């Protein structure tokens, strides 16, 4: 009996959710500053991508965005 639950298949899910969440937290903390080495170039790439997406939305879908 764990946390008032008898079936190990259920309390392991209950505990598993908490562990999976902690995995995400630990991963996020450990890698908080990693992965930005080529940020400048990435930003440029992403700007290009975003510009194209916006063009598609305006020219092909006729949507407009208040974001601007």
């Amino acid at each position, binding site marked *: 009996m764990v946390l008032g639950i008898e079936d190990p298949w259920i309390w392991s899910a209950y505990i598993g959710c908490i562990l999976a969440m902690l995995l995400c937290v630990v991963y996020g903390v450990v890698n908080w500053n990693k992965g930005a080495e080529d940020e400048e170039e990435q930003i440029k790439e992403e700007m290009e*991508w975003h510009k194209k997406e916006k063009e598609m939305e305006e020219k092909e879908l006729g949507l407009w965005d208040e974001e601007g």
Partner: protein
Amino acid sequence: MDIFILSIVVLIYLLMVGYVGYVAWKRTKSADDYMVAGRKTHPYIMALSYGATFISTSAIVGFGGTAGVYGMGLLWLTFLNILVGIFIAFVFFGKRTRKMGHNMGALTFPEFLSRRFNSKFIQYFSGAVIFLGMPLYASVVLIGMARFVETTLQIDYNFALVGMALIVAVYVIFGGLRGVMYTDALQGTIMFFGMLFLLASTYWVLGGVVDANQALTNLINIVPASATAKATATGFTGWTSMPSLGSPFWWTLVSTLILGVGIGVLSQPQLAVRFMTVKSNRELNRAVLIGGIFIFMMTGTAFVVGALSNVYFFDTVGKLAIAVAGGNADKIIPTFIGGAMPLWFAYLFMITLLSAAMSTLSAQVHVQGTALGRDIYETVTSKTGGSSVMIARAGIAIAVIIAVILGFILPANIIAVGTAMWFSITAASFLSLYIFALFWKRSTKVGAIAGLLTGTFFSMFWILFGYQKSAAALGICQAITGNAVILTTAPWPTVDPIVIGLPLAFVVTVVVSLLTKPPAQEHMDLCFKGI
């Protein structure tokens, strides 16, 4: 309905959204400013807007209510939502999708697959699957909203549905609200604290974590056997124990609800596209932390509270949750919040649910518009602009109308199952293709097309002829063969399409790829540049 409290809650909410919108607007004067501001987007905002797109009324109202019937076994779905939907999706799929998407200049999910495998067919075929299948998902999100409004404000369901549809239509037509990530993040924040409050007060009302869970465990021995007779006959054993292994109840829980949605999330077109809007892997790393906590709180709370509502209702009115909700699991969460929580909270929760549904619906509708305009029309006719705008707009209008019509005709207890169907169709169709696109350079165009067709047509076939819930409702198998499903022996009528469709598509893609000529090296170099 208490108009005074409702008005105050709505007013405070609107003031908050208005303020956040104003701050965002002040910071971004021009489109270029927006671009720059977007690049500085805090990972908190990225993660919460992803979360707000992922989690909607379907997860909270639909699956929460389903937990009232299936019990805490549904927590395995929360486990997968965090591990697969956040961790694996961000760390393993997100980073590659972002880089490869930029390398290939792909703007939509079908386009991503199509450019990777150098096949226009993949683009318009995938676009068609999305355009035809997505209204089901959009419709159940809409139903979730309408059910909550129906119960909380005590108005007629049909009236609520039309009201919700009008709000959605206005929201979509004035598409300007779409993509305002700040308001998404605000809604996400309110939802987070709303769910935290709901979880804490539910456990508080029921005497603490251990006592409440214990009471739920004991419940199966206290309720009259007649109340659970139908479920027990199909394998139900209690709200804190797994159903009998291999029983119909077990298959529905494990194959449809847990695997269908838990795995299917990886190939959701409206979520995959979000990875391409991230500036670096660091943002994804950080978003893992925030997303993990967010999804834990959203789905974990919904499923725990849904299951525990049985204890609350049995203690207060002597009935099980599903009986109090009139046999419709979609109404369990609204009824519980209406009954057990303070009125102001029910109103606040309703508004945040509506906004969560809005962000999901607008992403769905957007993906449908691009599927018809860019992925189908432009790819088939090789024309851009002009007529494509009309087609995309018409597509959006048709999508919203179909979703509303489905909202009227779909039966009760549909939200979770409808969501799961859509997730398992997309998983069977796209997931093997998507995985190989990202991780296997030897996969070929012909292999990819073979896998795509196998997964799509198998899951469609199974939905029409094999899977009891859908086949019986559609009646096509009945008309042709005289039986509701082709394989009547257990467990086949309760085996979800994803269980067979996904492995089948996987194997077909591998075998056909190995039998065909490997793709050109230059193309691979372009796609995998920097990976």
